[in-house]
């Protein structure tokens, strides 16, 4: 070095040396690692640990460029100065480049695990009351599926597929550093600064067993140090309209079906010349409203933020609504040089109403029935051939709002406190204690007045109250050591000891015959009828987790990165002697882009290769599974001796241990063409062993099931996300676009028993967990098709034809009838799926579109399958529009009405509910205008003002289901909900059933800061 220096001196006659200190403007602390570049040259320097730098500049007009990740770049004319001290302003806009990795942050370049980040701003491109709705289609490998279309519903989150068969597959949500015990709907999306999603095991390993299904780190907004107080308001208002009605038959269509079936004739209230659209009589327009007001600011040593929000979502079914009041505050304060304290509190109170109103009653109502009496009054009940349902409409439900109601009021408070101590004398060493204290309580009440929702007007009223409480605390002790040696060796080490405990209890009581309907559910003690406290509805559990963890992250020159983690978890829910598990994770990264051979490339700005391996584990079974379980059976001995019986339902498992996964992850991050095109490609394999399972036992074992470690599963997948800046301020136009595509291949690798199939649970080695085991529909039996009598004894022409896999005798005649052995294994998972977004801006205007798509897989619609009782094809109740077989219409999809049945439905009617799940949906289109650059706005002190209009769920393309039914092809129910028969599908298989209809929403909104 010195030789070079000497050699250079003679040439640098006009040069002068400049030195100085670079510090953080907010707290004045020195900033190491800041790039100091002489503009227009390649010469420069990097600041040392004390923020010092020395650089030679060519002359007095030289300009120094100070740049550092997370700070605004500053350019300074040197002039004649020899010392230039600079305060760098933290750059809020580049905060996304700092990635929250759990127990710390990392610069994006240094990340070696698989972490996807999304800023709060991007999330708010989709105005919504629930973060899960805003996240759909935004991140590769993160699948969000709708589980309910009711107001206030959250979506199901799956990160890289389904690993576990019985244990939960929900990811861990960490809110401001503390594992979140609440409902994700309790988080106000407006409060979110960023979401960081840890996808692979090397990234999640620090969360140990809690992170087995991925981790979503939610960071909420905080004030900035030294920032002037700012007030912001965000609000939107929107209207919800039905996306499409459920495709039920109209009067003439239903009349034709009833005649074709030949089983029922019109009942007293029915007439062939009537055509009633019951759905029109029920639905109304819904609204969505959101207001959020915040203030934030900072002092020299601290900062604060405070937000209050209100959200109201009224559905299209009368009385269905969700309302949320939220309040949030965060404070950070430095005390002296070494201590920092902080506190965050997130509180919300929400009310969900209207679950008493189902729509099966409306959908199944005969369109041939006139709801009005001759004198124009509403009929209480409708006499149909076998049924006499209570009849309701929008007006009926709204008029009964004090007589027929269901509501849940929940209050949640999620609080975290921390204290941080810089250990004096050891540079870079910090101790931090995090304490999380959460409490959520929910109170539910139902009341059904006398005769309401019942054919008999004197049916006694009924009421119920339920309560649940969740208590959660967590204490984490962290030692972190963060230092840079010799300017190039960056080390970050963390050691953790943590304990957490959750306690849940719930109770429910119900009563019949409340003497005054004014009481609703507020005083069950006055019930004239029975008061029931059903033991199966009282619940208590407590579970605890203790953990030790250590992690070291090392990076050399931002070029080579290594991260290693070891964690040990002990869980209360597992069997004695099997409670603890220790697992490692390691990952490495290579920033190829910083190698000399690429450093000056015009094409490649960044290229990073990442490889990770890690183990995680899952203990997310319900507490007390190791002990076995007695279930209760109430009984009466005569009319006045009551007793509750117990019997063995679940056998104990004294060997119940951890389920664990091993993941390999390969990732490539790139940024090309002056950072105009950037993206990530990843590939992973996760092998899960000792999968926790509720195993259904044969009846001859004397019990229903046992929770056990059984089997191995595998998930393999690839993910691609690309973001492009297509036009960068070309004549005022900017155009950005992003796309993510991902695929996950899931399969069951082995069952511990060595068996290759478990038909009762629909588990088959070599096939995905989300499989359906059912007959395969190959058409309809037509006149003259051979062997109908052998294959389908009692069958008829026009019935559903399913695949026969049995043998044939030498004459080509099937040897047996079609039976359970002919069922096929069908994969529900899509081939690939993803999302896209694009944004075009011109001057103050911007237009953005966000969409999602899915290709392949099976959509289960219980509207069309047997379990929905809406496709009985018997003419007993209204039917979905179905192109059914008649002697004149043999080329139909649906079987002959009134043909062979299984239960009340056509034989093999379950197969009618399977559809190709492919779709492409534009989720939101938003047109906005920013007033920042309008002088008038600036003059009155407004920092930011944006107005926008958005339409949500505008259209669906490429969906076979949408083509047939006109419906939104997204699922709206768990497998055991919103169908007449709820035992047909495992809960994990999401279905489209008789939930609130999907809506299309039109919104206008404003964002304002001053």
């Amino acid at each position: 070095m010195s030789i070079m220096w000497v050699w250079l001196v003679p040439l640098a006659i006009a040069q002068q040396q400049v030195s100085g200190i670079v510090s953080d403007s907010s707290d004045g602390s020195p900033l190491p690692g800041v790039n100091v570049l002489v503009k227009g040259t390649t010469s420069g320097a990097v600041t040392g640990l004390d923020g010092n730098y020395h650089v030679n500049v060519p002359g007095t007009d030289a300009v120094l460029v100070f740049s550092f990740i997370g700070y605004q770049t500053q350019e300074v004319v040197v002039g004649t100065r020899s010392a230039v001290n600079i305060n760098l302003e933290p750059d809020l806009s580049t905060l996304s480049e700092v990635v929250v990795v759990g127990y710390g942050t990392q610069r994006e370049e240094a990340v070696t695990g698989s972490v996807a980040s999304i800023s709060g701003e991007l999330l708010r491109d989709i105005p919504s009351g629930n973060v899960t709705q805003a996240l759909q289609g935004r991140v590769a490998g993160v699948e969000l599926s709708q589980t309910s279309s009711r107001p206030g519903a959250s979506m199901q989150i799956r990160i890289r597929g389904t690993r576990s068969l019985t244990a939960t597959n929900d990811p861990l949500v960490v809110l401001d550093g503390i594992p979140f015990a609440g409902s994700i709907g309790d988080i106000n999306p407006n409060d979110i600064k960023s979401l960081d999603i840890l996808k692979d095991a090397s990234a999640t390993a620090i969360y140990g067993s809690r992170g087995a299904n991925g981790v979503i780190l939610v960071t909420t907004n905080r004030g900035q140090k030294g920032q002037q107080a700012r007030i912001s308001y965000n609000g939107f208002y929107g209207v919800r309209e039905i996306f499409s009605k459920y495709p039920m038959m109209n009067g003439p269509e239903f009349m034709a079906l009833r005649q074709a079936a030949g089983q029922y004739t019109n009942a007293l209230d029915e007439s062939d010349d009537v055509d009633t659209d019951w759905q029109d009589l029920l639905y109304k327009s819904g609204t969505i409203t959101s207001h959020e007001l915040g203030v934030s600011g900072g002092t020299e040593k601290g900062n604060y933020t405070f937000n209050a929000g209100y959200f109201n979502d009224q559905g299209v079914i009368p009385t269905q609504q969700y309302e949320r009041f939220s309040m949030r505050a965060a404070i950070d304060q430095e005390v002296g040089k070494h201590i920092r304290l902080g506190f965050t509190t997130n509180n919300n109170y929400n009310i969900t109403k209207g679950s008493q109103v189902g729509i099966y009653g409306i959908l199944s109502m005969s369109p041939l029935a006139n709801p009005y009496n001759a004198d124009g009054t509403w009929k209480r009940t409708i006499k149909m051939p076998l049924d006499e349902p209570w009849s309701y409409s929008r007006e009926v439900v709204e008029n009964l709002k004090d007589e027929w109601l269901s509501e849940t009021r929940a209050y949640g408070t999620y609080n975290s406190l921390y204290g941080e101590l810089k250990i004096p004398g050891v540079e870079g060493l910090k101790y931090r204690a995090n304490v999380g204290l959460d409490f959520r309580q929910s109170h539910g009440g139902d009341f059904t007045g006398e005769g309401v929702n019942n054919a008999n007007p004197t049916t006694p009223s009924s009421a119920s109250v339920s309560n649940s409480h969740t208590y959660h605390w967590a204490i984490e002790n962290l030692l972190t050591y963060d230092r840079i040696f010799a300017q190039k060796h960056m080390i970050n080490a963390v050691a953790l000891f943590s304990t957490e405990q959750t306690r849940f209890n719930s109770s429910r009581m119900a009563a019949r015959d409340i003497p005054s309907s004014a009481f609703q559910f507020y005083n069950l003690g006055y019930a004239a009828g029975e008061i029931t406290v059903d033991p199966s509805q009282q619940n208590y559990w407590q579970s605890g987790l203790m953990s030790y963890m250590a992690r070291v992250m090392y990076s050399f020159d931002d070029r080579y990165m290594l991260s290693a983690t070891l964690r040990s978890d002990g869980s209360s829910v597992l069997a004695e002697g099997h409670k603890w598990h220790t697992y490692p994770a390691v990952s490495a990264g290579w920033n190829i882009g910083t190698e000399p051979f690429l450093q000056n490339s015009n094409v490649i700005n960044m290229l990073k290769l990442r490889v990770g391996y890690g183990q995680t584990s899952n203990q997310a079974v319900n507490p007390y599974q190791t002990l076995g379980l007695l279930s209760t059976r109430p009984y009466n001995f005569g009319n006045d001796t009551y007793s509750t019986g117990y019997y063995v339902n679940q056998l104990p498992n004294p060997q119940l241990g951890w389920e664990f996964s091993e993941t390999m992850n390969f990732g490539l991050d790139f940024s090309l063409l002056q950072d105009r095109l950037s993206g990530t490609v990843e590939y992973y394999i996760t092998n899960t062993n000792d999968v926790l399972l509720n195993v259904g036992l044969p009846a001859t074992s004397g019990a229903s099931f046992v929770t056990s470690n059984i089997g191995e599963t595998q998930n393999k997948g690839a993910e691609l996300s690309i973001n492009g800046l297509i036009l960068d301020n070309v004549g005022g136009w900017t155009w950005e676009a992003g796309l993510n595509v991902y695929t996950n291949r899931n399969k069951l690798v082995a069952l511990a028993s060595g068996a290759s199939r478990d038909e009762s649970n629909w588990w088959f080695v070599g096939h995905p967990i989300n499989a359906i085991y059912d007959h395969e529909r190959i058409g309809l039996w037509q006149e003259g098709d051979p062997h109908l009598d052998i294959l389908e004894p009692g069958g008829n022409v026009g019935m559903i034809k399913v695949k026969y896999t049995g043998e044939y005798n030498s004459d080509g005649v099937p040897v047996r009838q079609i039976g359970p052995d002919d069922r096929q294994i069908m994969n529900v998972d899509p081939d690939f799926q993803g999302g896209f977004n694009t944004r075009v801006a011109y001057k103050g205007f911007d237009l953005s579109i966000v969409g999602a798509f899915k290709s392949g897989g099976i959509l289960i619609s219980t509207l069309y399958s047997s379990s929905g009782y809406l496709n009985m094809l018997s003419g007993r109740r209204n039917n979905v529009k179905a192109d059914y077989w008649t002697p004149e219409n043999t080329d139909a999809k649906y079987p002959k009405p009134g043909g062979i049945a299984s239960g009340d439905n056509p034989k093999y009617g379950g197969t009618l509910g399977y559809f190709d799940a492919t779709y492409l949906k534009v989720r939101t289109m938003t047109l906005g205008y920013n007033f920042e650059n309008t002088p008038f706005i600036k003059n009155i002190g407004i920092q930011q003002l944006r107005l926008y209009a958005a339409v949500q769920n505008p259209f669906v393309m490429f969906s076979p289901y949408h083509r047939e039914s006109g419906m939104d092809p997204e699922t709206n129910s768990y497998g055991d909900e919103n169908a007449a028969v709820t035992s047909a599908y495992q809960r994990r298989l999401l279905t489209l059933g008789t939930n609130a209809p999907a809506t299309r929403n039109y919104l206008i909104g404003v964002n304002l800061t001053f």
Partner: protein
Amino acid sequence: MKSKHIKKYTAAALVALLLGSCSEILEEQPRSLYEPGFFRTERGVNGGITSMYAHLRYIFGQAYFYNTTLTGTDEATWAQSADANFKDMDLSGVGSITSTSSRADVLWGAAFSNINTASGIIENAAEVEGISDALIAEARFFRAFDYFMLVQTFGGVPLDLGSGELKFNNNPVRTSVRNTVPEVYTKAIFPDLLTAIDDLPAVGRLTGTATQTLARLYLAKAYLTYAWWLENPNNIPTYPETSRVDPDGKDAQWYFQQAYDVAVTAIDNPGPFGLQETFYDLHLGSNDRNKELLLYADHTETSEFYNGASLTFSNGGAPENFAVWMMTWNYTNIRSSTTSDWSNVISSVQREASQDLGRPWTRMAPPIGVFENTFADKTNDARYDGTFVTVYRGNWKKGGINDDFVYNANDMRVEHGEPILTFLDEEPSTPINYPNGAGKSNIGAGELPGRSDFVISPRGISRIAHPGLWKLGTYRTDNGDGLGQPNAASTRPFNIAKFSELYFIAAEAAVMGAAAQGGKSARDLINVIRARAGKWRWDNNGNRAKAEDNSAAMVAATPATIDIDYILAERSREYFGEGYRWYDLVRTQKWAEVASTYEIGGINYGDHAPVKVNRTIEPYHYLRPIPQGQIERLELSPEELSAYQNPGYQ
């Protein structure tokens, strides 16, 4: 200062966690659930015993299981709204019995867990203070009861659930080995029942609990059934295959004699039990749980929770008692008019929570033979009137229609409460004027000159219109002036065992060669039942008092020599529609002989031409298939799985 405090607290918390509560955090204490160890307490034993009674509801009154006991016999076939559950069991070419379609799975699914709970109680009770032998005997009775039901239905079944023969199982095995029929009888059923007879009280501990008489009835019936199995007159196969040799070295005759002796002992020592005065009283809703009833799956309208089923609307699933809906046809389709020109038609018989009406599902129908043969005598024998609803009476006022009378058949007036439709006892001498199709009555019923009620004769009944089943009908006391809650499942107990059956068992054993005691020959015993059947105090369908004693005529009509066919016919008269028939025909191996053909009208209103239907009843049908759910949950090789299934169903 502040920071020091926080540090102090944090440190204190940390120390506390490290030292004090490490193990506590990882320990479990359930507070809202019982684990199986609870059976080792006195209250646990009591709760376990209660669940044995409650488990009856998952079998008896469950309509699909009810269907397997009747559909396919001479008592029932499928009705107009029948689904495959019913058509399959009929064996008449409209479906087939397979491991997935057979609804005997209901029994399989409920019995083993109860057997296991019983074994748990029997084992644990020995360690618990204060548990009487009488209480344990209730568990023994139920273990034997379930094994007896299983062995009659499926053949041999496993005695080892995973922890050894008749041991409480807490070992989650997914294998199973079936024992043979004689092993199930001699190792499980007989020893448990013999102990139960010794230990059970003469008078039940609570209303409807097990007694000595009940245990005697089941032991007698088990001996009788096993004796038939040993005798095997029609060479019906058994499974798992075994020779018809008793492990205890006794022969069929010995067991017939035992059956006779035990049954007669029970008759001679009735305790609080005995026959009702009339057959009508036996099944009258207000007289439920009477002294003739030894066992029932109880229900109540006094508590929805303990009833185990909604008191307002039921869906048709266990533990609801919804069996009677099956043979209830849709009488609500009957129409009358409030105007003489039939311009305002009403439903004159509305759905009501009463014993003659109730909720219609139209799934099962009695064939014509029931009316022409089984119940040929409808005048002396009160059992026809006490079994069926043959007269449907107007109840429109309860449904809110205020007219005092309606125009009905022949445009004649019918007052509220008077007959709208009558199923005639005999073919009338004047031909009935039936409509084509549904006609004025809307259900295809005909008219007879001078009668204001619509009529259907025995040969005119069909799968869509036939007499209803009064004996199991709904009975509620909370209807007020209205129709009540007809859509709720029945809140009456579903009867399982009656004192009267002791006479039949002893008679059957005597017919099969058991030596009879003096005055207790087969004919003597049957005549006790027939004499009672001749007694009337109320004309049920006529809705009026009728004090008549036709006992003498009934006894006089009894044949001099009773054979097994006569016993079977008499059993059908006594127990029609109660779920005995398939078991009776299978035990005596008479199913194919008795039930291979039947006659009934079609599925449309106005179908009054009887159609003769043939059934294909093969020897293998005498055992029901092992349910597919059991097969699927077993971890056995394909060969073993195949061998686990009963022959004919693999």
